[in-house]
């Protein structure tokens, strides 16, 4: 029983990572990958796709009490596959097609027979592209790091 709970947690953690990759994906790239992976859009829409707002919170001083500092557009969708899995999607922006596809990918991911396929053909490429973009950005920023040097004056 304890083992089951641990496995469940692990599964949740993996699903969270997969959903994050979908949420951060550029819409066009996701559409391309879904088409290449042979994702068929035969899902029933249970909710949305609909666009709304989230209030974005920060913390006073960086780590103190929370405060709201603005809002952001978010689009969400919930779908049900003919096989019964229910998938959800939430992502910044207003791309409804992306939300729908992400929800379908999430639903397929929950089917143990399809998971590896979705991971390999959609999630992994998205994560790799994001990691590459982050690495490039970090390297570009690192090149602007100031190297201080000290001028020694006098004899002592």
């Amino acid at each position, binding site marked *: 029983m304890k083992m089951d709970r641990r496995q469940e947690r692990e599964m949740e953690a993996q699903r969270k990572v997969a959903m994050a990759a979908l949420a951060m994906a550029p819409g066009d790239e996701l559409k391309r990958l879904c088409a290449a992976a042979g994702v068929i859009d035969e899902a029933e829409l249970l909710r949305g796709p609909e666009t709304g707002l989230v*209030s974005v919170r920060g913390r006073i001083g960086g780590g103190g009490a929370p405060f709201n500092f*603005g809002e952001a557009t978010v689009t969400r969708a919930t779908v049900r596959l003919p096989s019964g899995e229910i998938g959800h999607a939430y992502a910044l922006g207003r791309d409804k097609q992306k939300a729908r596809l992400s929800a379908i990918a999430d639903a397929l991911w929950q089917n143990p027979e399809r998971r590896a396929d979705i991971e390999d053909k959609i999630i992994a490429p998205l994560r790799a592209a994001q990691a590459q973009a982050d690495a490039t950005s970090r390297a570009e920023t690192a090149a602007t790091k100031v190297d201080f040097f000290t001028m020694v004056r006098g004899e002592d």
Partner: protein
Amino acid sequence: MYVAVKGGEAAIANAHRLLADRRRGDRSVPALRVDQIVEQLALGIDRVMAEGSLYDRELAALAVVQSRGDLIEAIFLVRAYRTTLPRFGYTRPIDTAAMQVERRVSATYKDLPGGQLLGPTFDYTHRLLDPQLAGDPEVVEPEQREADGQRMTRVSEILAHEGLIEADGELPEDHLTGDITREPLEFPLARDSRLQALSRGDEGFLLALGYSTQRGYGRSHPFVGEVRIGEVELELDVPELPFPITLGRIRVTECQMVNQFKGSAKAPPQFTRGYGLVFGQSERKAMAMSLCDRALRAGELGEDVTAPAQDEEFVISHSDNVQATGFVEHLKLPHYVDFQAELDLVRRMRSEHEKRNQTNETERREAAE
């Protein structure tokens, strides 16, 4: 008597048609695309997002096109748009320590962990106009260098070890996070609501107030402990999922202002802090916000409230440029009846004034004779 006056429908329709024409301008010049504005006028877009209080680059860019580049008008459009959308919830607070940093500098510590990263800054440019940009010159790719992967500690954590700096701002445990978009402003505000108002406040107004504190109107001895710009992840708790879902990333600017403080009856000598957090790459705004945040803490820290920047009701009531422009600009709308009444009043006062003068003159003459 009240007389309703109607008319002007045709004039208004034609004015809007003329506006649409002038907005587009010379048709032989290609129309601006939204993606061009997002990419090449990014900091203007960031300002519209920050003061429009809505993070959505394409919408902000659309607003800039529609408003012919009038940023306050664009901010107004964005604010109006956000009222049409439902609210899905409040995100978890962002973690700026985990930021994918694009720029980070400190004016207080030369060798802080992670170092001084200049990023894409205007600082140290010569502010000379570059005529070549009128063409479309080739731009070289940025230089790259291996990143050391060092965690970029917030500067406040460094000083905190010595106990010489106050902690991040805490509020009482039973305090419910304020939301000025849901509840009317009631003074005095808690610091969370004040920061929310400042974060969407007008950059020019907050800049001027911040500047006024430097010039002696509520002096606060500020140092930029740290400014950092970069992307942070947003997470939202939703009932249908057992974990907080990642929504994506947004770019923010954070400023930790550190202020020397000689102590008061309420607090010992230490470094106090002002905080700035703004959407996008908005360094000037984040710095101005942190100066204003610190100035507005005068009462809390037992300082005398003597300057405009320390007066919460004054600062917060006038920091919102949509409200400000609404009230100032409404003056140009028809006030015919108001003015007619004022005109009658001034005529009457003038005739009484003249009558009084005549009487005085007569009395003076009679007295002289």
